[in-house]
């Protein structure tokens, strides 16, 4: 007797893909899983790539398969394989010029590409990079060894982590931020004061309120930039960190519905039968704001990929969507988390702020004061998970509000 094997094809090989593959394997032991990755390397933990630049981790230490929740799920991974089109009528995927692969269920987890402003694209020169892949990290690490000063554009989390990697290598780093603060997507200007101080202590030069007007070059590539305020900054490397955009170009001729990213329903399915999407390429609904959202977070991609995997293997699993902002990290010598709704200026939220020399806490409640909707903790992030739980579960917190505000909340309060 032969068993009909389901053919699963996954485009992409990062968080969403690998958790989907693991989930499929948990529910379907014999299906055929093929992963198509345009990157040259086997799957790796993408958030760790700044550590390759600093030299703190080597490539094998970032390998994904066999680590954490990612088991060896007996799948076929084709690296260096670029998907050029998807034909949903005939259920095939074309790779390269002509090679066609048939699927029964398709997951598009093609991730995102760095967004490079058009005026910078025009000026591109040797030594201008954006950090997205392990391949990029290798190039940046190689260039770093002959660079004394680096210039970075953009004040997001990845850029800050990369800035620290370069500082650790002994480079001088200037960070150019268009807005008045770093991490503007994760907190408001007044909230970021402690972070700015920590960055100063660490020796990072931050230039706010500026853009890059011109890239200066010589025979070795970049040698500096001219800012929008006409000031010159010297540097032999320029890193662009202006966010990402979903990688959907190869779907141009397909019938897959796209609104910036691939439109997905609550079961992670696209508009066409047997096609699913997860991770940075998928458009979902932010569970807190109710707005359309493309997440771009590793943890969200893992969760959505896992849902997609179960759905593809026939185990119906609802994806609840998560908040667009759910970040934790260590910046220089300070820890912080930012969760849920944190931009409150001008909106009708009830906010409570407590500040000391070393710590900052901001709690955001709904206008009726009955639900916690967001939190920013800097310095002391102890038990942040309890607050995250309250935010995502939209629990009525009236009975424990005092403990929340006074930073006394513990798990026992949930049992009362």
């Amino acid at each position, binding site marked *: 007797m032969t068993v009909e094997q389901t053919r699963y094809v996954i485009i992409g090989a990062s968080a969403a893909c690998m958790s989907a593959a693991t989930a499929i394997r948990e529910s379907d032991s014999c299906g055929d899983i093929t992963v198509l990755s345009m990157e040259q390397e086997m799957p790796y933990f993408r958030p760790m790539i700044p550590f390759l630049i600093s030299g703190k981790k080597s490539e094998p230490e970032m390998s994904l398969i066999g680590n954490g*929740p*990612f088991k060896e799920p007996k799948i076929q991974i084709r690296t260096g394989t670029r998907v050029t089109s998807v034909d949903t009528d005939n259920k095939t995927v074309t790779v390269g010029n002509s090679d066609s692969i048939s699927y029964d269920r398709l997951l598009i987890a093609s991730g995102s590409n760095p967004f490079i402003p058009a005026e910078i694209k025009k000026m591109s020169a040797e030594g201008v990079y954006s950090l997205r892949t392990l391949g990029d990290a290798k190039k940046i690490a190689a260039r770093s060894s002959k660079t004394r000063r680096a210039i970075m554009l953009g004040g997001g989390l990845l850029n800050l982590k990369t800035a620290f990697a370069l500082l650790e290598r002994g480079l001088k780093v200037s960070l150019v931020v268009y807005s008045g603060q770093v991490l503007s997507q994760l907190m408001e200007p007044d909230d970021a004061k402690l972070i700015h101080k920590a960055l100063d202590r660490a020796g990072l030069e931050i230039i706010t309120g500026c853009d890059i007007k011109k890239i200066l070059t010589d025979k070795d590539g970049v040698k500096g930039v001219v800012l929008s305020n006409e000031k010159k900054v010297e540097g032999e490397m320029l890193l662009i960190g202006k966010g990402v955009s979903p990688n959907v170009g190869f779907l141009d001729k397909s019938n897959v519905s796209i609104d910036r990213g691939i439109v997905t329903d609550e079961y992670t399915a696209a508009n066409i039968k047997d096609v699913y999407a997860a991770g940075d390429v998928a458009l979902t609904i932010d569970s807190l704001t109710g707005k359309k959202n493309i997440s771009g977070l590793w943890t969200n991609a893992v969760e959505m990929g896992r849902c997609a995997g179960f759905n593809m293997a026939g185990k119906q699993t609802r994806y609840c969507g998560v908040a667009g902002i759910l*970040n934790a*990290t260590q910046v220089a010598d300070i*820890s912080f*988390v930012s969760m849920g709704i944190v931009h409150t200026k001008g909106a009708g939220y009830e906010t409570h702020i407590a500040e000391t020399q070393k710590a900052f806490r901001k709690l955001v409640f709904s206008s009726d004061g009955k639900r916690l909707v967001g939190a920013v903790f800097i310095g002391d992030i102890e038990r*942040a*998970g309890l607050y995250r739980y309250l935010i995502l579960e939209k629990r009525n917190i009236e009975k424990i509000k005092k403990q929340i505000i006074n930073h006394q909340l513990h*798990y026992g309060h949930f*049992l009362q």
Partner: protein
Amino acid sequence: MTTPKEIFVKIDKCMGCHSCELACALEHSKSKLLYNAISEHPEPKKRIYVEWMSQDSRMPVLCRHCEDAPCMHACISGAISRTEEGVVLTDKDKCIGCWTCVMVCPYGVIGRHMEERKAYRCDRCPDRDVPACVSACPTHALIYETVENFSSNTRKAASKELAAGHGG
């Protein structure tokens, strides 16, 4: 295969003496001797927390080693995995101190070791037959048992009470 044991908490038996916290920190110290441990640097860290629920009720809170552990799925460096015994462990060498696990743990029981910049939590005392906190608890508020035995014992105790109540 034998079913692995877990640490259960009997909330009604905890009297808030903090013995479990001390035993935990001691077990995770370098010397494992109380006199030496208190002067160690970095200070030994406890992974169990006795919390006050109300005026007359306390409870120890510790890692539940969740079946679908949010920390394990959220970890961005693959440092958290589950052993065959069902223990969710953080591999110190792999941990990069990003605190994502701290942010997603719904029990609030993952600590930050700031000297090492590593996350830490209950490891169920791999060098001991019975975890230190369980051995130290004077009122048996902490029980180390398999799920089957624990619920069977709970059922037996409940039926005894019922029978006693009916004069049986």
